[in-house]
């Protein structure tokens, strides 16, 4: 099963290679990874998507916790949470498909962030399924370039009934 793991780390030189080295050294795979500073510039947050049975994921979280620079590890999959990723897709549609491309972008609440005589570049944010769907729909229109961020995730706060 896939797990999205949030790892809070000291924002220090070499931390990323400690984490990626842990995964490669122990034969765990990283499906996606995103890293950035938090509000506190001394701390970075990494969101790692990995897969494995419960046994493996338990080991992964324990091994991450064991690294000296790791402050906190949360398996988001166990919590109610919001996940997002973003893609930038450059399409070069035939003349007759141009309108359809723009229509699709709109349906998926995408934005055209760049255009030329031959291309549109569309930005789309959302959950994985949504991104996969638009990619499928745009494929026949001619995708020229495609970049995708790693997943980021945040836990939802519970709402108390009034």
């Amino acid at each position, binding site marked *: 099963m896939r797990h999205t793991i949030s790892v809070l780390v*000291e924002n220090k030189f070499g931390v990323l290679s400690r984490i990626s080295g842990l995964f490669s050294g122990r034969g765990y795979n990283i499906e996606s990874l995103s890293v950035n500073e938090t509000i506190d510039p001394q701390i970075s947050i990494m969101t790692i998507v990995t897969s494995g049975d419960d046994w493996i994921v338990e*080991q992964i979280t*324990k091994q991450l916790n*064991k690294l*000296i*620079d790791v402050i906190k590890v949360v398996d988001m999959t166990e919590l109610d949470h919001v996940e997002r990723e973003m893609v930038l897709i450059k399409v070069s549609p035939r003349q007759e498909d141009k309108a359809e491309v723009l229509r699709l972008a709109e349906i998926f609440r995408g934005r055209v962030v760049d255009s030329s005589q031959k291309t549109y570049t569309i930005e789309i944010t959302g959950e994985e399924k949504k991104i996969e769907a638009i990619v499928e729909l745009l494929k026949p229109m001619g995708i020229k370039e495609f970049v995708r961020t790693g997943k980021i995730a945040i836990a939802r706060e519970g709402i108390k009934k009034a």
Partner: protein
Amino acid sequence: MKISGAEIFIESLKKEGVQHMFGYPGGVVLNIFDKLHDEKGLELILTRHEQGAVHAADGYARATGKPGVVLVTSGPGATNTVTGIATAYMDSIPMVIFTGQVPTLLIGNDAFQEADIVGITRPCTKHNFLVKNVEDLAGVIKEAFYIAMAGRPGPVLIDLPKDVTTHKAEFVYPEDVKLRSYNPTYDGNKYMIKQAAQMVARAKKPVIVAGGGVILSGASKELKEFAEYADVPVTMTMMGLGGFPGSHKLSLGMLGMHGTYYANKSIQEADLLIAIGMRFDDRVTGKIDAFAPHAKIIHIDIDPTSIRKNVRVDTPIVGDVKNVLTVLNKVMKEEVKDQWVEVRKAWTKQLDAWRRERPMTYDRESDMIKPQYVVEKIYELTKGDAIITTEVGQNQMWAAQFFKYDKPRTWLSSGGLGTMGYGLPAAIGAQLAFPNKLVIDIAGDGSIQMNIQELATAVINKLPVKVAILNNRFLGMVRQWQELFFEERYSHTKLDDVVPDFVKLAEAYNAVGLRATKKSEVEAVLKEAFSIKRPVFMDFVTDWQEKVYPMVPAGAAIDNMLFYEEKKKVEKKLKAVK
């Protein structure tokens, strides 16, 4: 007043109470070595190879419980430490290794003698640092010593660029360390401990498996108290030897691939395993699915990643072994009392029957020098009062099987990595820490040649280590596998009958060389060696065909053992296992 990085280095080590370190100089660490020249309180032992320095520091650490300290230069000096660091890492030995580095401005330029040692050692250190500013140096050293010793211990490396050793800063050594990202759990969960106590009380066939964690946490006394009070037999992993007295009536000796029949049998029949400070290495468990099939498992370890890594665990207790056992002993005495006296009787009887059925043995009638005989004689003559280090291979296994370790920190051997060449430098480190103790490296003729240059270190520093070479003229352990599993095809395992001549070699180093070629000479050689206050090489020309038994073939269940008594049957049995 501002002082240089080199001076900060020295002052910091003094604050850590370091008296001895091991090392080897070179260009980028010259500033530090220059400061060491007049230094009285801090002695550096010059080894003859950086690997030797790290193993010596490791031996020092294992013998004393204090962190070993190493100082070497950049590039080849640094890369030469890697095997030693990996050895310490696998066995959780606290150590701080300082490597010189090219000046900060040159880092990344492929400068002369530059190696990315922080990158290279990332997977084999507990943590490592590159110090870029002299202002950070004292704080980093404080953190490094703390990390090396805290929780599950391990080696920590500090890479010191040359300019950091010359730049100046105010010296303020931090009082203590607080890392928000590293807080090991020392106290076990009380509820789990109570549950464990109940399980021990109810068990009909319990066994304790003690590992290196018992020694690292200094819990031998608590373990003995627990085992005796609850009347539970104890088997030890190789790393655990000495954690519980080997001569105790509850001791089952070592378990695993070359464990005793009765230890392995007890595991397979047990209804409860109490695993203490051990990590279920494959050399211990054999075929994992067939390991301890009837047992519930209580696992006490300070490292959460050790728990449920290889085997299922019913009652995990994360914490320092000593702390947990202290509480467990209290709970046992106050809450469960001795309700097990009757049930244990049957179990004890069964264990005694296994002990009688297949005791540890070898061909005692043989005229040849049997390596086990040498080890037994060493035990007899020293009455067990010695620090034993080993090399790797058959020598190591015989040293584990035929010497009874009654005290912790008297058995120093590379377990996890199995590093040939460990024993001599480790003996030097232990001898430096305990000048009046008898320190003996039980060695193989192959392994001893991997760090033989350290004989010079022993001679020059007047460290009277004794090296007992069980000379079978073979890479014996590998040969044993070739004999058993590769139709006696001895591909590249034959060494040589006369090269080197270990006696002459010892003499060339200004040490003493002795040789025994007959069984009748063994005792005299040992007695003479032990009476000489200088380093001695003893060359015991042993029966090359001797094998380590019992043996569990790799991948077989641990009660699927081959025995010395049935050499002829072994082959048949092997086929069945294959």
